[in-house]
Structures are given as structure tokens and as C-alpha cells.
């Protein structure tokens, strides 16, 4: 076991997969000498050369589509999109081409492309560089959505994503890159569709993912002081969703809080709660609660920015609402 940063774990996953499979290549903006804005691709150019670590012009729609076409034609591209916000520029290629290709061709071919990107608030980057857009991709059949919260999960899930035969939207979080965690030496993979119980508890189920996992774990410690034993489940992959793990936990605790940084309106949380209502309504002892991002464009000002996404206090308050019914 070594203690490494989230971005180093991602770097290791890319390096190991590129060493293992000559058909894996990476492509994106500034990923070469600079090693990417968040240094995830650091030193890969030196090791693999510019034929496999490919810098792009600012042609987002087309280099995403290039990734799709290269996947269809037999390689395993990992495309880096600097900010999830820029994915809006690429939506035809993602939603109409890549997501639908396997289906519309009657299953003739696989489309093993990984689109790595990052989202979330935290660095004073204002409205066009701070969004959490997973619900867009979650909504579209044909895409898998992965959002790891720890270095361990980041590495194991990225390796799985690269080996998967279908498109993966892999969304990192800008506030996680410098966080550290234990990562074993050598090979391991984390299957999609397996949530991870980051803290087990009996009184209430907190479902979350990505950076909010860290905030929920802090909230759980505060709740412990109030005598509340919270279970914190990190979904890790939104598509596929580990329904079994969610339902089992809700059946145990009878209370559900879903926490995410993304906008509350039309968010993944609402959909998950609907699923629980359909499948485990009579296990619930109180109405489920959403603690989610405010329905606003993220402001630049540091104090205002913070208000847009759930704080630890808001998570605690959301849990108390679920507890008190």
C-alpha cells in the first residue's frame, strides 16, 4: 500500500493500461508536456511519445467524435475534456453518435471510448467552469457514468473503464485531485455497478458520490455526536446504478438522504428517490430528502460560490429532516 494523490492514481491507471495494451491512446488539450491542467497525464508523453499522447486544437466536438470513430475502428481511446462544462460543445457527438452507435447498428460493433473530464466548484472559476453535469449523461441511454471519490476508486474504475467495450463518461472533481488515499501496488479493477459503503450505519442512508462523499463522511461524524449512526454509500458509478445496495440499505435504515453537488432540479437524486419509492416505499419511515446544489449559475465570488452546493451543515440538517420525518 502506498499513500498517493487522486491525480497520481489516475496517472497510474493510464500508464498501466497504456503499457498493457498498445491500442490504448490518450488525446486532449494540453495533455503532453504540460501533463494536463490538473497533471493527470504528467510524464506520459515522455514514456509513450506523441503518437499515443496526442495534443489537440480547441476542437472539442471533433476530437470527442474522433475518439468515438477510433473506438469503432478498433482502438481504445481515452479522451480528456478539460472541463465538463465544455461537454456542451460536443453533445451531438456524445449523444447522437457515440451513445447510439452500438444500438443503431444492431449491435455490430463495440465503442470502447472513455471520456475523462472534471467538474464541480471550488476554484473560483465562475459559471462556465464549475458545473456538475452528470445528469445530462445519466439521462442518455448508451452511456455509462463513473464518478470516483477516492484515489483507490479512481484508479480501479479508470482501468475498468478503459477495458470496457462501451462508452464511459468518467467525471473527476477538481477538488479531489490533491486528496490522498491508500492505493495498493499492482493490478486491481473495480467493477461498474458496485456502490461502496464508505461508512456503515443503521439509522439513516446517505447516498452520494464524487467530492460530496468526503462532505457526507464529515457530516456523519457530526451526526454521531448527536447519537445518529449514518450509513454513507458512495455510488461510484451512476450508470450502471447499484440498486441492490441502495435498496438493502434503505430497507435496513428506513430513512434516505441523497446528496449531490449538481442542481437539485432534474438531478440524479430525484431519480434515485423515485426508484426507491417504486421499489421500497413501505420500507421508508419518513419522506426521502434531497440535499443538492441550488438551481443557479455558480457565481464567481468566493462566499457566494460556497452557498451553491451542499455544506456539511446542510447535509446534517437534511439528515435531521429525514430522522424527524
Amino acid at each position, binding site marked *: 500500500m502506498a499513500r498517493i494523490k487522486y491525480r497520481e492514481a489516475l496517472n497510474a491507471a493510464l500508464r498501466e493500461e497504456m503499457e498493457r495494451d498498445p*491500442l490504448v*491512446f490518450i*488525446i486532449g488539450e494540453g495533455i503532453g508536456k504540460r501533463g494536463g491542467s490538473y497533471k493527470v497525464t504528467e510524464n506520459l508523453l515522455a514514456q509513450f511519445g506523441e*503518437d*499515443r499522447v*496526442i495534443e*489537440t*486544437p480547441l*476542437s472539442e*466536438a*471533433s*476530437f*470527442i*467524435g*474522433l*475518439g*468515438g*470513430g*477510433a*473506438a*469503432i*475502428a*478498433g*482502438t481504445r*481511446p481515452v479522451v480528456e475534456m478539460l472541463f465538463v462544462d465544455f461537454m456542451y460543445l460536443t453533445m*451531438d*457527438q456524445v449523444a*447522437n*453518435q457515440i451513445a447510439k*452507435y452500438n*444500438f*443503431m*447498428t*444492431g*449491435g*455490430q*460493433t463495440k465503442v470502447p471510448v472513455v471520456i475523462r473530464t472534471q467538474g464541480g466548484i471550488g476554484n473560483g472559476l465562475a459559471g462556465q467552469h464549475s458545473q456538475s453535469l452528470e445528469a445530462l449523461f445519466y439521462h442518455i*441511454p*448508451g452511456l455509462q457514468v463513473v464518478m470516483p471519490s477516492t484515489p483507490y476508486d479512481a484508479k480501479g474504475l479508470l482501468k475498468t473503464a478503459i477495458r470496457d467495450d462501451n462508452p464511459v463518461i468518467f467525471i473527476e472533481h477538481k477538488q479531489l485531485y490533491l486528496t490522498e488515499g491508500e492505493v495498493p501496488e499492482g493490478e486491481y479493477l473495480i467493477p461498474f455497478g458496485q456502490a461502496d459503503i464508505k461508512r456503515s450505519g443503521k439509522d439513516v442512508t446517505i447516498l452520494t458520490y464524487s467530492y460530496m462523499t468526503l462532505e457526507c463522511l464529515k457530516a456523519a461524524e457530526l451526526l454521531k455526536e448527536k447519537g445518529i449512526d449514518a450509513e454513507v454509500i458512495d455510488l461510484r458509478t451512476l450508470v450502471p446504478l447499484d440498486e441492490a445496495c441502495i435498496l438493502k440499505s434503505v430497507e435496513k435504515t428506513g430513512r434516505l438522504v441523497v446528496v449531490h453537488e449538481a442542481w437539485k432540479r432534474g438531478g440524479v437524486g430525484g431519480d434515485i428517490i423515485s426508484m426507491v419509492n417504486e421499489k421500497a416505499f413501505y420500507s421508508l419511515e419518513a419522506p426521502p430528502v434531497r440535499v443538492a446544489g441550488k438551481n443557479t449559475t455558480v457565481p464567481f465570488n468566493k462566499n457566494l460560490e460556497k452557498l451553491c452546493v451542499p455544506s456539511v451543515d446542510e447535509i446534517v440538517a437534511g439528515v435531521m429532516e429525514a430522522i424527524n420525518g
Partner: protein
Amino acid sequence: MDSNFLKQMYETALTIRRFEEAAIEQYRQGNIYGYLHPYLGEEAIATGAIAAINPDDYIVSTHRGHGHAIAKGHDVRLMMAELLGKETGYCRGRGGSMHVANMKQFNLGANGIVGGGIPLATGAGMAIKQKKSSQVVLCFFSDGAVNNGVFHESVNLAAIYHLPVVFIIENNHYAASTPVENMNLLKDLSAHSAGYGIPGLSVDGNDAMKVYNAVIEPVKRARSGAGPTLIECKTYRHRGHHVNDPGAYMPQDILADWKSRDPLIVLRKHLADATVDAAEIKEIETKVDTLIEEAVKFAVESPEPSEAEFLNEIMAL
């Protein structure tokens, strides 16, 4: 020119013509629904261009894509079955006219989004480069697509990475109903190539031989690793945008002029010049008619996709 090669070209172009006529008939009978965009009048482009590549070279097609697939050697029975939404179609009835694709013959598919296939073609070019294979990609798209951002981005990507892609603009003079000259001031759309530092040329798209000759060198160039070329083939639709568009906005005199240079008429002239006799031409025509008749019969008699199987498949998604 070798008369056998010309006969082959004529057979391909005629197969496209008869296939489209049969598809329109099937549409009229209610056996095809949705959209159907005939390639009538444009047959020389797919025929000539695809004659210049190998069976394991890729093509990327468009919503008006039946011609490319036929020129690539697809089985017209499976194509017609796809147009009728049948289980036996290339895409098991999941794609239809706008999405015919066949990986086994390196056709990455038609596309319902104008310009949508251009980035995918560029990606296939990148895959070829990664695998150090000697294949090329022919990427077909329309004058309409030239005004879409991904055209410009993708041609530039192919240029800077020296990808083995030949970009072929099928300028049929209309983006749906909008005349090209109202939407682009260039006289030759291939002039866009200068903006990306690659060669470009414009050619008579109604003459399959001229198209073939124009594509040969760019394919060689692509295969040698020297990068992409942009080719404009000028042509004219014989009908409106799709089967239910009468094309009333197309001036009759201009249409008549283009029809006097119908790709099949031009090819028959080449055949006559090569002293292919009428009996041989008749033989080709009979063969094609039989092929298309069989395709329609096969498609009509093929089973619908199983609803239960479909529901079962999507359970796992």
C-alpha cells in the same frame, strides 16, 4: 479504359438507381415509413470514388447513404430489409434508411445528423494510424455539412495528424431545400482546403470516371501517410430532399440540364466509346433488375424483429 471496369461501374450505378426506385415504390406502398433520402442523380460519386479503394478501406456515409453502401458491395437484400425495418436487415431494423452500416465491409454507416459522421471518419483515420495499417477512409458528406463546425474542425484534425482520410463533398446544390449559393460564397467548395493547408480539387460529380480519376491520387497520398485531401464532386439531385419533398424549389431548366448529363447517360457514353455492345449492356440491366426484384421480395417476406427479444435486450442497459 478497360471495358470490364466500365461495365462494373455501370452495374454499380445502375444498381443504385434501381434500388432507389424500388425503395420509393416500397415507400409508396406503405412498406417503408419514416424518412427516405434517394441518391438519384448522384450515383456517379459513390460509384467512382469507392471504385478507387480496397475492400478493407473504410467509408463513412450520410443520410443519403444507400449509394455508398451499394458501391461498397453491400447485399441489396439486407439493405432493403433494413429499409423495411426487418430483423434480417444490416442493423436488425434498429437503424433504418438513415443508419445503414456494415462493419464487415468497413462501412461505418450512414448518419441522421448532417456532418455527424465527419469526426467519426477522422477517428477511423486515427485508428488506422495507431494500428499502423495501410487502410484509408473515404468520408462522404454534403454541401450542407460544409457549413457545420465539425467539418472545419475535423478536416483540420486530419491535416495536423496526417490522417489517411479523403474528404468528399457531394455538392448536390441543396441543403434540404436551401440553395448552396445562398449559404456559401465559394464557387468551389474545395477551396476550403486552403484554410487547412491540404490539397483540394473540384470535379464533375456526374461522371463516375472523372470522380474515380480524381480520387486515385488522394487515396495514394493518404495511404502513404501524407495526409488528407478535400474533393468536391458537383452534382444535382433528381428529386427533392426526401421521398415526400417534390422539390418544387428546384428550377426546372437547371434540373433538365443536369438530367441531360445523368450519371447513367454519361456512363453509357463511356461504354459506347469503349465499344461495349448493346447486348452486353442489356445483360447488365437484366441482372440488376433481377437482383432488385429479389431484394424487395426478400425484404417483404422477412420477419419483423421480435418485440420480446428487444425488450429483453434493453433490460440489461
